C-alpha cells in the first residue's frame, strides 16, 4: 500500500492529539490543579493570542515565506492603542481594537511590499522590519510604559471581559480560526494561497495573481498581529517597548509543530489548532509541574527542529517508495 501524504498528515494530527492527551495526563498527575476549569480557561486565554497569530503565520509559511516581525508588530500596535487610551480615556474598546488592527495592517502591507514587489527574501525583509518597528515602538512611547492605571477598564476588558462565561480572547480566537478554516478551504483566494506555495511557477502560468496573494498574506499576518497586540497589552495591563520580544519564535514553532510544511504548499487548520494548543500547554503549564520557565525556549527550538526533520525524513521515504515502483 502506498504511503500517502494525507495519511501521514492524519497520522501527524493523531500523534499531536495523543501527545496532548498524554501531556495533560502527566501534568494532571503532577499537579491536581491542572485540569480545573479555572486553569483551563487561563491556559486557553493565554494561548488565544498565539492561536490568532499562528493563523496568519500559517498563511505566510504556506507561500514559502516567513515573518520575523510579528513580535514587534504586537508591540507597536499594542503601544499605539494603549497610548491612545491613556490620552483619550473615554474611547470605546472597539475603536481601540480597530486601531490596533490598522497599525498591524500597515506593517503587514510594508512587509508584503518588500517581499512581493521588491523580491526581498522574506527572512531579510522581516528581519529588517522587525527591528525598525521595535525601534519605532520605543520612540513613540518615549521609552515610557503605559501601565494598568493609565488604561480604562473598558480597554482592559478587551482581554478580561467575558461573553457567556468564556473570556473574550478565546472567543476571538475561535471566531478567527473558524473564519480562517472557511477562507482557506472554501474560498478561491484561500485555495490559491496553497497553489502559490505548492508550485509558484505553475501558479504564474495558471494565471493566479501570485504577487498579489503574497502581498495579501503578509498584510493579513500584520492585521492579526495587530489584533494580538491589543489583546496582549489589555491582558497584561501594560504596554512596553519590549513587549512580545521573541514571540515570533513561538508563533513559528506552533505553526510548524501543527504540520505546516516550511517548504510551503501544505498544512491543515486542524493540525494548526492542535499544534498551537500543544505549544500553549508547553509554554504555560510547565511552571505547574515545577519545570523552570527557562526551559521554554530550548524546548521550543527542539520542537521546531524535530518537526522539520520529521517532515524531511518522511518525504525521503516516500520518494524512495516511488522510485521502486518504476519498471526499471
Amino acid at each position, binding site marked *: 500500500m502506498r504511503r500517502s501524504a*494525507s495519511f501521514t498528515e492524519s497520522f501527524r494530527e493523531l500523534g499531536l492529539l495523543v501527545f496532548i492527551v498524554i501531556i495533560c495526563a502527566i501534568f494532571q498527575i503532577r499537579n491536581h490543579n491542572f485540569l480545573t476549569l479555572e486553569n483551563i480557561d487561563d491556559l486557553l486565554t493565554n494561548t488565544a493570542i498565539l492561536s490568532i497569530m499562528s493563523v496568519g503565520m500559517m498563511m505566510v509559511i504556506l507561500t514559502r515565506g516567513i515573518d520575523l516581525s510579528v513580535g514587534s508588530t504586537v508591540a507597536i500596535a499594542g503601544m499605539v492603542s494603549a497610548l491612545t487610551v491613556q490620552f483619550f480615556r473615554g474611547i470605546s474598546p472597539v475603536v481601540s481594537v480597530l486601531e490596533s488592527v490598522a497599525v498591524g495592517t500597515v506593517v503587514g502591507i510594508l512587509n508584503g511590499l518588500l517581499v512581493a514587489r521588491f523580491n526581498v527574501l522574506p527572512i531579510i525583509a522581516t528581519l529588517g522590519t522587525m527591528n525598525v518597528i521595535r525601534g519605532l515602538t520605543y520612540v513613540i512611547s518615549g521609552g515610557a510604559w503605559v501601565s494598568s492605571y493609565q488604561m480604562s477598564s473598558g480597554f482592559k476588558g478587551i482581554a478580561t471581559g467575558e461573553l457567556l462565561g468564556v473570556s473574550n480572547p478565546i472567543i476571538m480566537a475561535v471566531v478567527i480560526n473558524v473564519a480562517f478554516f472557511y477562507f482557506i478551504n*472554501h474560498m*478561491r483566494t484561500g485555495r490559491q494561497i496553497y497553489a502559490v*506555495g505548492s*508550485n509558484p511557477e505553475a501558479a504564474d502560468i495558471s494565471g493566479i495573481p501570485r504577487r498579489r496573494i503574497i502581498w495579501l498574506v503578509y498584510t493579513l499576518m500584520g492585521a492579526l498581529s495587530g489584533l494580538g497586540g491589543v489583546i496582549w497589552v489589555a491582558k497584561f495591563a501594560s504596554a512596553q517597548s519590549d513587549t512580545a520580544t521573541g514571540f515570533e519564535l513561538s508563533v513559528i514553532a506552533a505553526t510548524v509543530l501543527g504540520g505546516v510544511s516550511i517548504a510551503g504548499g501544505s498544512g491543515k487548520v486542524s493540525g494548526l489548532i492542535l499544534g498551537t494548543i500543544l505549544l500553549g500547554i508547553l509554554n504555560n503549564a510547565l511552571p505547574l509541574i515545577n519545570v523552570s520557565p527557562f526551559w521554554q525556549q530550548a524546548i521550543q527550538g527542539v520542537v521546531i527542529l524535530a518537526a522539520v526533520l520529521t517532515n524531511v525524513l518522511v518525504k525521503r521515504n516516500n520518494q524512495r517508495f516511488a522510485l521502486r515502483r518504476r519498471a526499471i
Partner: protein
Amino acid sequence: MADRILELTHITKTFPGVKALNDVHFDLKHGEIHALIGENGAGKSTLIKVITGVYQPDSGQILFEGTPVEIHSTADSQRLGIAAIYQHVTCYPDLSVTENIFIGHEKIQPFTRKIDWRDLHERAGQLLAQLDADFDPRALMGNLSVAQQQIVEIAKALSANARIIIMDEPTAPLTARESEDLYKTTESLRDKGVSIIFISHRMEDMYRLASRVTVFRDARYVGTWNLNEAKREDLIMAMVGREITQFFPKRKVAIGEEVFRVEGLSRTGFFKDVSFSVRKGEILAMTGLIGAGRTEVCEAIYGVTHPDKGHVILEGQELHIGNPAQAIEKGIGYLPEDRLRQGLVLEWELSKNVTLPTLRKFATLGWLHPRKENAVTKELAEKLEVRAGSVFDLAATLSGGNQQKIIVAKLLAGTMKVIILDEPTKGVDVGAKTAIFNIMNDLAEMGYGIIMVSSEMPEVLGMSDRIVVMRDGRVATILETATASQEQILRAAMPETVHA
C-alpha cells in the same frame, strides 16, 4: 478541407544559429489519432510549441476548422480548445485532483466566491469516470503515480472542452499495464470526438492507436502515411534516411588496452545492469532515446549520484566515487549535458572557469597563482581556437561552441584518463561542431578513453569506434561502428513491445 480540424502549412521557425522547423506541414482530421514521429532534434517539440502558442512561427499558416488563425499565446491556443499533455506533469502536488483539474480554468468553469466542494468533486469524479479512472478525486496529486497524474491532465483538458489533445511521449514513464490503460483512455477520447496528436517513439503505440503517421526529420516534413499501409522498415528509413553530408573528420587512431569499464551498474528507478568498456584512444558512443538513461549512467560514474549496485573500474582498479571531486582526482572528466547550468559559471571570466576543477594545480597550499591560471587558460583556449578577446571575458559572452570549448579546456587543465562528453555538439553551429570533432580526435590520439553521449545519428556513426545503445535503462546492444547502420541503431533503441 472540412474534415480537417487543424492544418499547418509552410511553417518555419528559426532560432539564432538553428533552424528548428523548415517549411513543415501537418494536418489533423476530426476525431483521428495522428502519430508524429522522428528522431531527437527532428522538430516535433517545436511544432507542438507552435500549436500551443509558446512559439510563433516565422512564416507559414495555421488553419483551424478551415479558418486561418493566429496563435500568439498559450491562452489563445487554450481558447481554441487545444490542450497538451507532457511527460513531466506540472501540477500542484499538495492539492487534490479536483483542484488540479479546475484551478486556472475559472474562465471556463466559473468559480463562485464560495467553493462548492461536493459539486466539484462530483464533476471531477465524472470526468475521471469518463476516462475509466478509479481513483478518488479527493486524493492529493503528489500521491498519484505518473500514469494517474496523466489521467488527471487529460481530465483537465476535457474539463476545458478540449477539441484537440496533444500527447507528448505519454507512455515513456509508464509500465505495460499502465500503457494499456492509457491506450483505452485515448481511444475513448477519440470516440468522443476529440482529435489527438500522439508523439511517441514506440512503434507499438503507433500501430495500436493511430490511423495516420507523419514523419519529421532534421526539421523537415518527410511524409504522411496511413498506418494500415505503412511498413515499419519504411518508417524507420523515413526517420533516419539521409545522406551524411556532414564531414566527420574521424582519424585512424591506435587503440590501446582497456582503460575503463563498468560492470552491472544499477540504480533503482533509473538504469539496470549496465556494462561496457572503453579502451585507450577509443571513442565509445552512447546513444538511445530520451529517457533511456544515458546521462543518468554518466552522472553515476562521475559521482553526482551513486549507483546502488555494480562496479566502476579504471585502469584495472575498482573505484568508489563519492563525488565529482574524487572522480576528477582519479582522472574521470565530464562535460555535462546542460552547458549553462552545469558546465559553466556564466558570471565568471574564462580563466576562473577553466581552473575550477583543478585549483590544486594553480595554488600552493591553497594560495592561488592567478598569473599561472591566466597563462594556462590562454594556452588551452588558443589550442582549442576559442574566439575570445581575453581570458577575462565572461563566460556568458561566448557563443555556444566556444563555451563548449572552454568546458573542454576545463577537462584538459587536469590529467584525465577518461573523458565523458554528454551531447558535446548540442546547440552548437556547424563550424564549431567540426572543431569539437577535431578536438575529440586529438584527445583520442593522446590516449584518452572517450565516451560520447549523443542523440545525433550521423555524429554517432561518424565519430565513434563502438556504439552502446541504451533502451529503457538497460544496454540494448553494443555495436562496432564500422559495421553498424542507422536502422540497426534505431531499432535497438526503440521499444518494440511495451515492456512487461
